[in-house]
Protein backbone atom coordinates (compact mmCIF):
# COMPACT_ATOMS: atom_id res chain seq x y z
CA UNK A 1 0.00 0.00 0.00
CA UNK A 2 1.49 3.41 -0.97
CA UNK A 3 0.92 4.72 2.56
CA UNK A 4 3.22 2.17 4.20
CA UNK A 5 5.93 2.83 1.63
CA UNK A 6 5.68 6.55 2.49
CA UNK A 7 5.93 5.69 6.20
CA UNK A 8 9.29 4.00 5.63
CA UNK A 9 10.55 7.28 4.26
CA UNK A 10 8.93 9.53 6.88
CA UNK A 11 10.37 7.86 10.00
CA UNK A 12 9.04 10.47 12.42
CA UNK A 13 5.46 9.98 11.29
CA UNK A 14 5.91 6.22 11.62
CA UNK A 15 7.30 6.56 15.17
CA UNK A 16 4.43 8.85 16.16
CA UNK A 17 1.77 6.55 14.82
CA UNK A 18 3.41 3.50 16.40
CA UNK A 19 3.56 5.05 19.88
CA UNK A 20 -0.01 6.34 19.76
CA UNK A 21 -1.36 3.02 18.47
CA UNK A 22 0.38 1.26 21.36
CA UNK A 23 -1.19 3.71 23.82
CA UNK A 24 -4.60 3.24 22.22
CA UNK A 25 -4.36 -0.54 22.55
CA UNK A 26 -3.04 -0.17 26.12
CA UNK A 27 -6.00 2.03 27.07
CA UNK A 28 -8.63 -0.16 25.44
CA UNK A 29 -7.38 -3.73 25.96
CA UNK A 30 -6.08 -2.74 29.40
CA UNK A 31 -9.65 -2.26 30.60
CA UNK A 32 -10.29 -5.98 30.09
CA UNK A 33 -7.42 -6.95 32.37
CA UNK A 34 -7.93 -4.17 34.90
CA UNK A 35 -11.57 -3.03 35.09
CA UNK A 36 -12.09 0.69 35.80
CA UNK A 37 -13.76 -0.07 39.13
CA UNK A 38 -10.34 -0.95 40.58
CA UNK A 39 -9.09 2.55 39.71
CA UNK A 40 -10.85 4.11 42.70
CA UNK A 41 -9.69 4.27 46.34
CA UNK A 42 -10.03 1.24 48.67
CA UNK A 43 -10.50 -1.17 45.78
CA UNK A 44 -7.34 -3.18 46.60
CA UNK A 45 -4.84 -3.49 49.50
CA UNK A 46 -2.55 -0.42 49.58
CA UNK A 47 1.19 0.06 48.93
CA UNK A 48 1.77 -3.29 47.19
CA UNK A 49 4.90 -3.33 44.90
CA UNK A 50 4.39 -4.72 41.37
CA UNK A 51 3.69 -8.46 41.51
CA UNK A 52 1.94 -11.07 39.45
CA UNK A 53 -1.32 -10.28 41.14
CA UNK A 54 -0.87 -6.50 40.74
CA UNK A 55 1.40 -6.05 37.68
CA UNK A 56 1.62 -2.27 38.26
CA UNK A 57 1.41 -2.49 42.07
CA UNK A 58 -1.03 -0.47 44.23
CA UNK A 59 -0.95 3.05 45.79
CA UNK A 60 -1.46 4.40 49.30
CA UNK A 61 -5.19 4.96 48.73
CA UNK A 62 -5.76 1.36 47.70
CA UNK A 63 -6.06 1.82 43.93
CA UNK A 64 -4.84 -0.87 41.47
CA UNK A 65 -2.28 1.19 39.58
CA UNK A 66 -2.70 -0.82 36.36
CA UNK A 67 -6.40 0.10 36.29
CA UNK A 68 -5.58 3.67 37.33
CA UNK A 69 -2.98 4.17 34.60
CA UNK A 70 -5.18 2.51 31.95
CA UNK A 71 -8.18 4.64 32.97
CA UNK A 72 -5.92 7.69 33.35
CA UNK A 73 -4.47 7.35 29.87
CA UNK A 74 -7.97 7.10 28.41
CA UNK A 75 -9.29 10.08 30.41
CA UNK A 76 -6.32 12.42 29.90
CA UNK A 77 -6.05 11.71 26.17
CA UNK A 78 -9.81 12.08 25.81
CA UNK A 79 -9.71 15.48 27.56
CA UNK A 80 -6.91 16.59 25.21
CA UNK A 81 -8.55 15.26 22.06
CA UNK A 82 -11.97 16.73 22.91
CA UNK A 83 -10.51 20.17 23.67
CA UNK A 84 -8.24 19.94 20.61
CA UNK A 85 -11.08 19.05 18.23
CA UNK A 86 -13.33 21.83 19.54
CA UNK A 87 -10.41 24.23 19.32
CA UNK A 88 -9.63 23.11 15.77
CA UNK A 89 -13.26 23.35 14.65
CA UNK A 90 -13.62 26.90 15.99
CA UNK A 91 -10.15 27.79 14.71
CA UNK A 92 -10.78 26.46 11.22
CA UNK A 93 -14.10 28.28 10.93
CA UNK A 94 -12.69 31.58 12.22
CA UNK A 95 -9.46 31.23 10.27
CA UNK A 96 -11.31 30.49 7.03
CA UNK A 97 -13.90 33.25 7.25
CA UNK A 98 -11.37 35.84 8.43
CA UNK A 99 -8.83 35.04 5.69
CA UNK A 100 -11.23 34.38 2.81
CA UNK A 101 -13.59 37.32 3.37
CA UNK A 102 -11.03 39.65 4.98
CA UNK A 103 -11.97 43.21 5.99
CA UNK A 104 -12.94 44.20 9.54
CA UNK A 105 -13.55 40.61 10.65
CA UNK A 106 -10.00 39.73 9.66
CA UNK A 107 -8.48 42.57 11.73
CA UNK A 108 -10.55 41.70 14.80
CA UNK A 109 -9.68 38.01 14.61
CA UNK A 110 -6.01 38.78 14.04
CA UNK A 111 -5.84 41.13 17.05
CA UNK A 112 -7.81 38.73 19.27
CA UNK A 113 -5.44 35.88 18.41
CA UNK A 114 -2.32 38.01 18.92
CA UNK A 115 -3.54 39.19 22.33
CA UNK A 116 -4.81 35.83 23.59
CA UNK A 117 -1.67 34.01 22.43
CA UNK A 118 0.47 36.41 24.44
CA UNK A 119 -1.55 35.66 27.53
CA UNK A 120 -0.40 32.23 28.78
CA UNK A 121 -3.44 29.97 28.56
CA UNK A 122 -2.75 28.14 31.79
CA UNK A 123 -2.96 31.30 33.90
CA UNK A 124 -6.42 32.17 32.66
CA UNK A 125 -7.41 28.54 33.17
CA UNK A 126 -6.10 28.70 36.72
CA UNK A 127 -8.45 31.61 37.39
CA UNK A 128 -11.42 29.84 35.83
CA UNK A 129 -10.69 26.48 37.48
CA UNK A 130 -10.09 28.05 40.87
CA UNK A 131 -13.54 29.64 40.73
CA UNK A 132 -15.58 26.65 39.58
CA UNK A 133 -13.37 24.09 41.25
CA UNK A 134 -15.94 21.90 42.91
CA UNK A 135 -17.88 20.99 39.78
CA UNK A 136 -14.95 19.95 37.54
CA UNK A 137 -15.15 16.56 35.81
CA UNK A 138 -13.09 15.48 32.78
CA UNK A 139 -15.68 16.64 30.24
CA UNK A 140 -16.19 20.09 31.77
CA UNK A 141 -12.39 20.35 32.11
CA UNK A 142 -11.96 19.76 28.39
CA UNK A 143 -14.62 22.39 27.63
CA UNK A 144 -12.70 24.88 29.76
CA UNK A 145 -9.49 23.93 27.98
CA UNK A 146 -11.22 24.35 24.62
CA UNK A 147 -11.78 28.01 25.53
CA UNK A 148 -8.09 28.61 24.87
CA UNK A 149 -7.33 25.89 22.32
CA UNK A 150 -8.78 27.72 19.31
CA UNK A 151 -6.17 30.48 18.91
CA UNK A 152 -3.36 28.29 17.54
CA UNK A 153 -5.47 26.67 14.79
CA UNK A 154 -7.02 30.05 13.91
CA UNK A 155 -3.61 31.54 13.25
CA UNK A 156 -2.35 28.53 11.25
CA UNK A 157 -5.52 28.20 9.14
CA UNK A 158 -5.71 31.95 8.54
CA UNK A 159 -2.11 32.23 7.31
CA UNK A 160 -2.48 29.17 5.08
CA UNK A 161 -5.76 30.35 3.56
CA UNK A 162 -4.29 33.83 2.97
CA UNK A 163 -1.38 32.35 1.01
CA UNK A 164 -3.55 29.82 -0.87
CA UNK A 165 -6.16 32.43 -1.77
CA UNK A 166 -3.65 34.34 -3.89
CA UNK A 167 -2.59 31.21 -5.78
CA UNK A 168 -3.42 31.04 -9.49
CA UNK A 169 -5.36 27.78 -9.16
CA UNK A 170 -8.00 29.64 -7.15
CA UNK A 171 -8.30 32.14 -10.02
CA UNK A 172 -8.63 29.29 -12.50
CA UNK A 173 -11.36 27.76 -10.32
CA UNK A 174 -13.22 31.09 -10.35
CA UNK A 175 -12.83 31.22 -14.12
CA UNK A 176 -14.27 27.71 -14.32
CA UNK A 177 -17.50 28.89 -12.75
CA UNK A 178 -16.83 27.72 -9.17
CA UNK A 179 -18.54 29.74 -6.44
CA UNK A 180 -16.94 30.75 -3.13
CA UNK A 181 -18.15 27.73 -1.17
CA UNK A 182 -17.02 25.31 -3.87
CA UNK A 183 -13.60 26.97 -3.89
CA UNK A 184 -13.31 26.75 -0.10
CA UNK A 185 -14.22 23.07 0.10
CA UNK A 186 -12.97 21.67 -3.23
CA UNK A 187 -9.84 23.79 -3.79
CA UNK A 188 -8.58 25.17 -0.49
CA UNK A 189 -9.65 22.56 2.06
CA UNK A 190 -7.78 19.54 0.64
CA UNK A 191 -4.52 21.50 0.66
CA UNK A 192 -5.06 22.39 4.29
CA UNK A 193 -5.35 18.83 5.55
CA UNK A 194 -1.69 18.35 6.49
CA UNK A 195 -1.70 21.74 8.26
CA UNK A 196 -5.01 20.95 10.00
CA UNK A 197 -3.55 17.63 11.11
CA UNK A 198 -0.41 19.24 12.53
CA UNK A 199 -2.44 22.01 14.16
CA UNK A 200 -4.86 19.48 15.71
CA UNK A 201 -1.93 17.59 17.20
CA UNK A 202 -0.61 20.94 18.47
CA UNK A 203 -3.87 21.83 20.21
CA UNK A 204 -4.28 18.33 21.67
CA UNK A 205 -0.71 18.51 23.05
CA UNK A 206 -1.43 21.97 24.46
CA UNK A 207 -4.70 20.84 26.03
CA UNK A 208 -3.11 17.76 27.67
CA UNK A 209 -0.27 19.91 28.97
CA UNK A 210 -2.79 22.41 30.40
CA UNK A 211 -4.90 19.64 31.98
CA UNK A 212 -1.80 18.12 33.65
CA UNK A 213 -0.80 21.62 34.79
CA UNK A 214 -4.19 22.30 36.36
CA UNK A 215 -4.19 18.91 38.07
CA UNK A 216 -0.66 19.55 39.36
CA UNK A 217 -1.97 22.74 40.98
CA UNK A 218 -4.84 20.75 42.47
CA UNK A 219 -7.47 22.23 40.15
CA UNK A 220 -8.25 19.21 38.00
CA UNK A 221 -11.06 16.66 38.22
CA UNK A 222 -10.15 15.69 41.77
CA UNK A 223 -12.22 12.51 41.96
CA UNK A 224 -11.23 11.01 38.60
CA UNK A 225 -8.04 8.89 38.20
CA UNK A 226 -6.58 10.98 35.38
CA UNK A 227 -2.79 10.81 34.90
CA UNK A 228 -2.43 14.36 36.23
CA UNK A 229 -4.31 13.51 39.39
CA UNK A 230 -2.17 10.39 39.91
CA UNK A 231 0.92 12.63 39.77
CA UNK A 232 -0.81 14.99 42.22
CA UNK A 233 -1.53 12.17 44.70
CA UNK A 234 2.07 10.93 44.28
CA UNK A 235 3.30 14.25 45.66
CA UNK A 236 0.41 14.66 48.10
CA UNK A 237 1.19 11.32 49.81
CA UNK A 238 4.99 11.80 49.61
CA UNK A 239 5.52 8.65 47.55
CA UNK A 240 9.21 9.57 47.31
CA UNK A 241 9.96 9.47 50.98
CA UNK A 242 8.09 6.18 51.37
CA UNK A 243 10.00 4.65 48.44
CA UNK A 244 6.87 3.72 46.40
CA UNK A 245 8.93 4.00 43.21
CA UNK A 246 6.42 2.25 40.98
CA UNK A 247 3.71 4.76 41.90
CA UNK A 248 6.02 7.58 40.68
CA UNK A 249 7.54 6.08 37.52
CA UNK A 250 4.46 4.45 35.92
CA UNK A 251 2.38 7.63 35.32
CA UNK A 252 5.55 9.53 34.33
CA UNK A 253 6.44 6.83 31.78
CA UNK A 254 2.98 6.92 30.19
CA UNK A 255 2.90 10.73 30.09
CA UNK A 256 6.34 10.81 28.45
CA UNK A 257 5.09 8.29 25.87
CA UNK A 258 1.98 10.38 25.12
CA UNK A 259 3.95 13.56 24.55
CA UNK A 260 6.65 11.86 22.47
CA UNK A 261 4.02 10.16 20.34
CA UNK A 262 2.24 13.47 19.72
CA UNK A 263 5.54 15.23 19.03
CA UNK A 264 6.71 12.72 16.44
CA UNK A 265 3.24 12.75 14.86
CA UNK A 266 3.31 16.55 14.46
CA UNK A 267 6.93 16.50 13.20
CA UNK A 268 5.91 13.82 10.69
CA UNK A 269 2.90 15.86 9.55
CA UNK A 270 5.09 18.97 9.15
CA UNK A 271 7.41 16.95 6.96
CA UNK A 272 4.42 15.76 4.95
CA UNK A 273 3.23 19.37 4.53
CA UNK A 274 6.56 20.72 3.29
CA UNK A 275 8.97 17.97 2.30
CA UNK A 276 11.81 20.44 1.64
CA UNK A 277 12.56 20.59 5.37
CA UNK A 278 13.26 16.87 5.39
CA UNK A 279 16.28 17.11 3.08
CA UNK A 280 18.73 17.13 6.01
CA UNK A 281 16.95 14.63 8.23
Amino acid at each position, binding site marked *: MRFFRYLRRNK*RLAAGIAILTFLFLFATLGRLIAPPARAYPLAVPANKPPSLEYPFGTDSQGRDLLATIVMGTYLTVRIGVLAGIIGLAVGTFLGFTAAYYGGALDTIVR*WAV*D*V*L*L*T*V*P*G*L*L*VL*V*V*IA*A*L*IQRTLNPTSLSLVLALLAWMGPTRTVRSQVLSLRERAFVRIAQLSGEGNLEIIFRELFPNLLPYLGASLVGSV*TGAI*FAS*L*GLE*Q*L*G*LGAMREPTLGMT*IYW*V*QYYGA*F*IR*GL*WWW*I*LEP*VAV*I*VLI*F*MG*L*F*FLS*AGLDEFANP*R*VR*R*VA
Partner: protein
Amino acid sequence: MRAAYLLKRFGLLLVVVWTAATLNFFLPRLTPRNPIRERIVQMAVSGGYLEQGIEQMVKAYEAKFGLDQPLWKQYFRYLGDMARLDLGYSLTAFPKTVMELIGEVVAWSIGIALATLLLSFSIGSLLGALIAWPKSPKFLQYLVAPLMAVSSVPAYIFGLVLIYFLAFRARLFPMSGGFTLGTVPDGSFAFYMDVLKHAILPAISVILVSLGGWALGMRGMMVTVEGEDYMILAEAKGLKSRRIFFRYAMRNALLPQITGLGLSLGYLVTGQILVESLFGFPGIGALLNRSIFVYDYNAVLGITFMLILSIGVVTLILDLIYPLLDPRIRTGRKVR
Protein backbone atom coordinates in the same frame (compact mmCIF):
# COMPACT_ATOMS: atom_id res chain seq x y z
CA MET B 1 8.27 52.99 9.44
CA ARG B 2 9.66 52.71 12.97
CA ALA B 3 7.04 54.88 14.71
CA ALA B 4 4.12 52.85 13.31
CA TYR B 5 5.84 49.63 14.35
CA LEU B 6 6.43 50.81 17.95
CA LEU B 7 2.92 52.23 18.33
CA LYS B 8 1.47 48.92 17.18
CA ARG B 9 3.57 46.87 19.64
CA PHE B 10 2.79 49.22 22.57
CA GLY B 11 -0.88 49.07 21.67
CA LEU B 12 -0.72 45.28 21.82
CA LEU B 13 0.73 45.44 25.35
CA LEU B 14 -2.03 47.77 26.51
CA VAL B 15 -4.73 45.50 25.08
CA VAL B 16 -3.12 42.43 26.67
CA VAL B 17 -3.02 44.04 30.10
CA TRP B 18 -6.55 45.37 29.68
CA THR B 19 -7.77 41.88 28.71
CA ALA B 20 -6.10 40.36 31.76
CA ALA B 21 -7.66 42.96 34.07
CA THR B 22 -11.09 42.54 32.47
CA LEU B 23 -10.93 38.74 32.75
CA ASN B 24 -9.89 39.02 36.38
CA PHE B 25 -12.79 41.39 37.06
CA PHE B 26 -15.61 39.58 35.26
CA LEU B 27 -14.70 35.92 35.71
CA PRO B 28 -15.42 35.84 39.47
CA ARG B 29 -18.72 37.61 38.78
CA LEU B 30 -19.85 35.04 36.24
CA THR B 31 -20.24 32.26 38.78
CA PRO B 32 -23.59 32.39 40.71
CA ARG B 33 -21.90 32.40 44.11
CA ASN B 34 -19.21 34.93 44.78
CA PRO B 35 -16.18 32.89 46.02
CA ILE B 36 -14.67 35.83 47.85
CA ARG B 37 -17.79 36.43 49.97
CA GLU B 38 -18.08 32.71 50.47
CA ARG B 39 -14.48 32.58 51.61
CA ILE B 40 -14.96 35.33 54.18
CA VAL B 41 -17.98 33.53 55.62
CA GLN B 42 -16.04 30.29 55.73
CA MET B 43 -13.20 31.91 57.66
CA ALA B 44 -15.63 33.63 59.99
CA VAL B 45 -17.30 30.27 60.70
CA SER B 46 -13.93 28.67 61.47
CA GLY B 47 -14.05 31.47 64.11
CA GLY B 48 -11.76 31.76 67.03
CA TYR B 49 -8.40 33.25 66.37
CA LEU B 50 -9.53 35.49 63.53
CA GLU B 51 -12.42 37.05 65.44
CA GLN B 52 -11.17 40.61 65.71
CA GLY B 53 -9.84 40.86 62.12
CA ILE B 54 -13.03 39.66 60.42
CA GLU B 55 -15.17 42.83 60.60
CA GLN B 56 -12.36 45.06 59.50
CA MET B 57 -11.66 42.74 56.57
CA VAL B 58 -15.28 42.49 55.43
CA LYS B 59 -15.55 46.29 55.53
CA ALA B 60 -12.27 46.53 53.57
CA TYR B 61 -13.69 44.17 50.96
CA GLU B 62 -17.01 45.98 50.82
CA ALA B 63 -15.16 49.27 50.22
CA LYS B 64 -12.68 47.57 47.96
CA PHE B 65 -15.29 46.11 45.61
CA GLY B 66 -17.97 48.68 46.40
CA LEU B 67 -20.44 45.91 45.75
CA ASP B 68 -23.35 48.32 46.17
CA GLN B 69 -22.26 50.58 43.28
CA PRO B 70 -23.28 49.86 39.66
CA LEU B 71 -21.15 47.28 37.90
CA TRP B 72 -19.50 49.63 35.41
CA LYS B 73 -18.40 51.99 38.22
CA GLN B 74 -16.82 49.09 40.07
CA TYR B 75 -15.17 48.08 36.82
CA PHE B 76 -13.53 51.45 36.23
CA ARG B 77 -12.38 51.73 39.83
CA TYR B 78 -11.00 48.21 39.49
CA LEU B 79 -9.10 49.24 36.35
CA GLY B 80 -7.78 52.23 38.28
CA ASP B 81 -6.51 49.94 41.05
CA MET B 82 -4.92 47.64 38.52
CA ALA B 83 -3.22 50.58 36.84
CA ARG B 84 -1.69 51.46 40.24
CA LEU B 85 -0.85 47.78 40.72
CA ASP B 86 -3.00 47.77 43.86
CA LEU B 87 -3.99 44.10 43.86
CA GLY B 88 -5.87 44.29 47.14
CA TYR B 89 -5.41 42.21 50.29
CA SER B 90 -4.56 38.53 50.53
CA LEU B 91 -7.53 36.68 52.03
CA THR B 92 -5.55 34.26 54.12
CA ALA B 93 -2.43 36.30 54.93
CA PHE B 94 -4.44 39.43 55.77
CA PRO B 95 -3.35 42.31 56.36
CA LYS B 96 -0.56 41.57 53.92
CA THR B 97 -1.39 42.80 50.42
CA VAL B 98 -0.98 40.50 47.44
CA MET B 99 1.83 42.71 46.20
CA GLU B 100 3.76 42.12 49.40
CA LEU B 101 3.27 38.37 49.05
CA ILE B 102 4.58 38.51 45.50
CA GLY B 103 7.44 40.80 46.49
CA GLU B 104 8.76 38.26 48.98
CA VAL B 105 9.10 35.48 46.46
CA VAL B 106 9.57 37.17 43.12
CA ALA B 107 13.37 37.41 43.45
CA TRP B 108 13.66 33.60 43.63
CA SER B 109 11.60 33.09 40.51
CA ILE B 110 13.34 35.77 38.46
CA GLY B 111 16.74 34.34 39.40
CA ILE B 112 16.01 30.83 38.24
CA ALA B 113 13.90 31.99 35.24
CA LEU B 114 16.64 34.25 33.83
CA ALA B 115 19.36 31.67 34.39
CA THR B 116 17.45 28.84 32.73
CA LEU B 117 16.27 31.04 29.87
CA LEU B 118 19.73 32.41 28.99
CA LEU B 119 21.44 29.05 29.34
CA SER B 120 18.89 27.03 27.37
CA PHE B 121 18.50 29.67 24.63
CA SER B 122 22.22 30.12 24.00
CA ILE B 123 23.29 26.47 24.32
CA GLY B 124 20.22 25.30 22.43
CA SER B 125 20.63 27.71 19.51
CA LEU B 126 24.37 27.02 19.17
CA LEU B 127 23.79 23.26 19.36
CA GLY B 128 20.98 23.42 16.80
CA ALA B 129 23.17 25.46 14.45
CA LEU B 130 26.08 23.00 14.76
CA ILE B 131 23.79 20.02 14.13
CA ALA B 132 22.59 21.57 10.88
CA TRP B 133 26.04 22.73 9.77
CA PRO B 134 27.52 20.20 7.28
CA LYS B 135 31.08 20.87 8.36
CA SER B 136 30.47 20.14 12.04
CA PRO B 137 31.42 16.78 13.63
CA LYS B 138 29.21 13.86 12.64
CA PHE B 139 28.33 12.56 16.13
CA LEU B 140 26.12 15.64 16.66
CA GLN B 141 23.59 14.10 14.31
CA TYR B 142 22.82 11.44 16.89
CA LEU B 143 21.70 14.16 19.32
CA VAL B 144 18.67 15.01 17.16
CA ALA B 145 16.43 12.11 18.25
CA PRO B 146 17.06 12.42 22.05
CA LEU B 147 16.64 16.20 21.83
CA MET B 148 13.32 15.67 20.11
CA ALA B 149 12.17 13.20 22.75
CA VAL B 150 13.20 15.42 25.69
CA SER B 151 11.81 18.64 24.26
CA SER B 152 8.31 17.20 23.89
CA VAL B 153 7.84 16.38 27.58
CA PRO B 154 6.61 19.03 30.09
CA ALA B 155 9.43 20.27 32.33
CA TYR B 156 7.87 19.28 35.63
CA ILE B 157 7.29 15.69 34.47
CA PHE B 158 11.00 15.60 33.66
CA GLY B 159 11.57 17.07 37.12
CA LEU B 160 9.85 14.07 38.68
CA VAL B 161 12.25 11.73 36.93
CA LEU B 162 15.23 13.82 38.12
CA ILE B 163 13.97 13.90 41.72
CA TYR B 164 13.56 10.14 41.74
CA PHE B 165 16.97 9.27 40.34
CA LEU B 166 19.27 12.13 41.43
CA ALA B 167 17.64 13.18 44.68
CA PHE B 168 15.96 10.10 46.04
CA ARG B 169 18.16 7.30 44.76
CA ALA B 170 21.57 8.93 44.40
CA ARG B 171 21.09 11.50 47.23
CA LEU B 172 23.11 14.04 45.21
CA PHE B 173 20.61 16.86 45.57
CA PRO B 174 17.92 17.85 48.05
CA MET B 175 14.45 16.68 47.11
CA SER B 176 12.60 19.94 47.50
CA GLY B 177 12.56 23.39 49.03
CA GLY B 178 14.63 26.49 48.34
CA PHE B 179 17.14 26.00 51.20
CA THR B 180 17.78 23.47 53.95
CA LEU B 181 15.01 23.80 56.53
CA GLY B 182 16.05 25.52 59.68
CA THR B 183 18.84 27.61 58.24
CA VAL B 184 18.43 31.33 58.68
CA PRO B 185 18.39 33.23 55.37
CA ASP B 186 21.27 35.47 56.45
CA GLY B 187 22.58 36.27 52.95
CA SER B 188 25.96 34.68 53.71
CA PHE B 189 27.93 32.89 51.05
CA ALA B 190 27.17 29.51 52.61
CA PHE B 191 23.46 30.29 52.45
CA TYR B 192 23.68 31.11 48.75
CA MET B 193 25.57 27.90 48.08
CA ASP B 194 22.79 26.04 49.85
CA VAL B 195 20.20 27.82 47.70
CA LEU B 196 22.22 26.98 44.59
CA LYS B 197 22.24 23.29 45.57
CA HIS B 198 18.46 23.39 45.90
CA ALA B 199 18.03 25.24 42.61
CA ILE B 200 20.08 22.80 40.51
CA LEU B 201 17.40 20.17 39.90
CA PRO B 202 14.54 22.54 39.05
CA ALA B 203 16.87 24.49 36.76
CA ILE B 204 18.12 21.39 34.96
CA SER B 205 14.63 20.07 34.32
CA VAL B 206 13.59 23.40 32.73
CA ILE B 207 16.88 23.82 30.80
CA LEU B 208 16.93 20.31 29.31
CA VAL B 209 13.38 20.57 28.02
CA SER B 210 13.60 24.07 26.54
CA LEU B 211 17.16 23.48 25.28
CA GLY B 212 15.76 20.77 22.99
CA GLY B 213 13.07 23.12 21.72
CA TRP B 214 15.55 25.88 20.86
CA ALA B 215 17.97 23.43 19.23
CA LEU B 216 15.31 21.96 16.95
CA GLY B 217 13.99 25.39 16.03
CA MET B 218 17.48 26.59 15.18
CA ARG B 219 18.24 23.46 13.18
CA GLY B 220 15.17 23.97 11.02
CA MET B 221 16.08 27.61 10.45
CA MET B 222 19.71 26.78 9.57
CA VAL B 223 18.54 24.21 7.01
CA THR B 224 16.38 26.89 5.37
CA VAL B 225 19.15 29.50 5.50
CA GLU B 226 21.68 27.12 3.93
CA GLY B 227 19.44 26.94 0.87
CA GLU B 228 19.55 30.72 0.41
CA ASP B 229 21.40 32.34 -2.53
CA TYR B 230 23.58 34.54 -0.32
CA MET B 231 25.15 31.42 1.17
CA ILE B 232 26.25 30.30 -2.30
CA LEU B 233 27.80 33.72 -2.98
CA ALA B 234 29.45 33.69 0.45
CA GLU B 235 31.17 30.42 -0.39
CA ALA B 236 31.98 31.66 -3.91
CA LYS B 237 33.70 34.66 -2.32
CA GLY B 238 36.16 32.26 -0.69
CA LEU B 239 35.22 33.33 2.82
CA LYS B 240 36.55 31.39 5.77
CA SER B 241 34.16 28.72 7.02
CA ARG B 242 33.89 30.33 10.47
CA ARG B 243 32.86 33.69 9.02
CA ILE B 244 30.19 32.03 6.84
CA PHE B 245 28.89 30.07 9.86
CA PHE B 246 28.60 33.01 12.26
CA ARG B 247 28.17 36.15 10.12
CA TYR B 248 26.01 34.67 7.37
CA ALA B 249 24.22 31.53 8.56
CA MET B 250 23.67 32.04 12.31
CA ARG B 251 23.17 35.79 12.03
CA ASN B 252 20.14 35.20 9.78
CA ALA B 253 18.86 32.08 11.50
CA LEU B 254 18.79 33.84 14.90
CA LEU B 255 16.12 36.34 13.85
CA PRO B 256 13.18 33.90 13.86
CA GLN B 257 14.59 32.35 17.05
CA ILE B 258 14.15 35.66 18.83
CA THR B 259 10.61 35.94 17.52
CA GLY B 260 10.14 32.39 18.81
CA LEU B 261 11.45 33.56 22.19
CA GLY B 262 8.70 36.16 22.35
CA LEU B 263 5.99 33.67 21.44
CA SER B 264 7.13 31.02 23.93
CA LEU B 265 7.30 33.29 27.01
CA GLY B 266 3.85 32.18 28.10
CA TYR B 267 4.88 28.51 27.82
CA LEU B 268 8.16 29.10 29.70
CA VAL B 269 6.44 30.91 32.59
CA THR B 270 3.86 28.15 32.91
CA GLY B 271 6.60 25.53 32.90
CA GLN B 272 8.47 27.44 35.58
CA ILE B 273 5.40 27.66 37.82
CA LEU B 274 4.74 23.93 37.60
CA VAL B 275 8.39 23.05 38.30
CA GLU B 276 8.42 25.36 41.33
CA SER B 277 5.23 23.79 42.66
CA LEU B 278 6.71 20.28 42.16
CA PHE B 279 10.00 21.12 43.88
CA GLY B 280 8.43 23.41 46.45
CA PHE B 281 11.00 25.94 45.33
CA PRO B 282 9.88 29.18 47.06
CA GLY B 283 9.09 31.24 43.97
CA ILE B 284 5.89 32.65 42.49
CA GLY B 285 4.85 29.18 41.32
CA ALA B 286 4.91 27.78 44.84
CA LEU B 287 3.05 30.87 46.09
CA LEU B 288 0.36 30.38 43.43
CA ASN B 289 0.14 26.70 44.35
CA ARG B 290 -0.25 27.52 48.01
CA SER B 291 -2.79 30.30 47.31
CA ILE B 292 -4.93 27.86 45.36
CA PHE B 293 -4.60 25.29 48.12
CA VAL B 294 -5.90 27.76 50.75
CA TYR B 295 -8.50 29.28 48.39
CA ASP B 296 -6.88 32.73 48.58
CA TYR B 297 -8.65 33.96 45.40
CA ASN B 298 -7.40 37.51 45.62
CA ALA B 299 -3.83 36.26 45.58
CA VAL B 300 -4.58 33.91 42.67
CA LEU B 301 -6.10 36.77 40.64
CA GLY B 302 -3.28 39.12 41.60
CA ILE B 303 -0.49 36.67 40.76
CA THR B 304 -2.08 35.83 37.40
CA PHE B 305 -2.39 39.51 36.56
CA MET B 306 1.21 40.26 37.49
CA LEU B 307 2.50 37.32 35.44
CA ILE B 308 0.52 38.39 32.38
CA LEU B 309 1.70 41.97 32.83
CA SER B 310 5.34 40.93 33.09
CA ILE B 311 5.08 38.68 30.04
CA GLY B 312 3.50 41.56 28.11
CA VAL B 313 6.32 43.91 29.15
CA VAL B 314 9.04 41.40 28.23
CA THR B 315 7.35 40.81 24.87
CA LEU B 316 7.36 44.57 24.27
CA ILE B 317 11.06 44.77 25.15
CA LEU B 318 11.80 41.96 22.69
CA ASP B 319 9.80 43.78 20.05
CA LEU B 320 11.89 46.88 20.66
CA ILE B 321 15.15 44.95 20.43
CA TYR B 322 14.17 43.05 17.27
CA PRO B 323 14.48 46.01 14.81
CA LEU B 324 18.04 46.56 16.07
CA LEU B 325 18.88 43.05 14.87
CA ASP B 326 16.88 43.05 11.62
CA PRO B 327 17.66 46.10 9.43
CA ARG B 328 14.74 45.32 7.14
CA ILE B 329 12.37 46.47 9.87
CA ARG B 330 14.58 49.31 11.08
CA THR B 331 14.94 51.10 7.76
CA GLY B 332 12.17 51.10 5.22
CA ARG B 333 12.81 50.91 1.45
CA LYS B 334 14.57 54.06 0.18
CA VAL B 335 14.97 53.26 -3.51
CA ARG B 336 12.11 51.79 -5.58
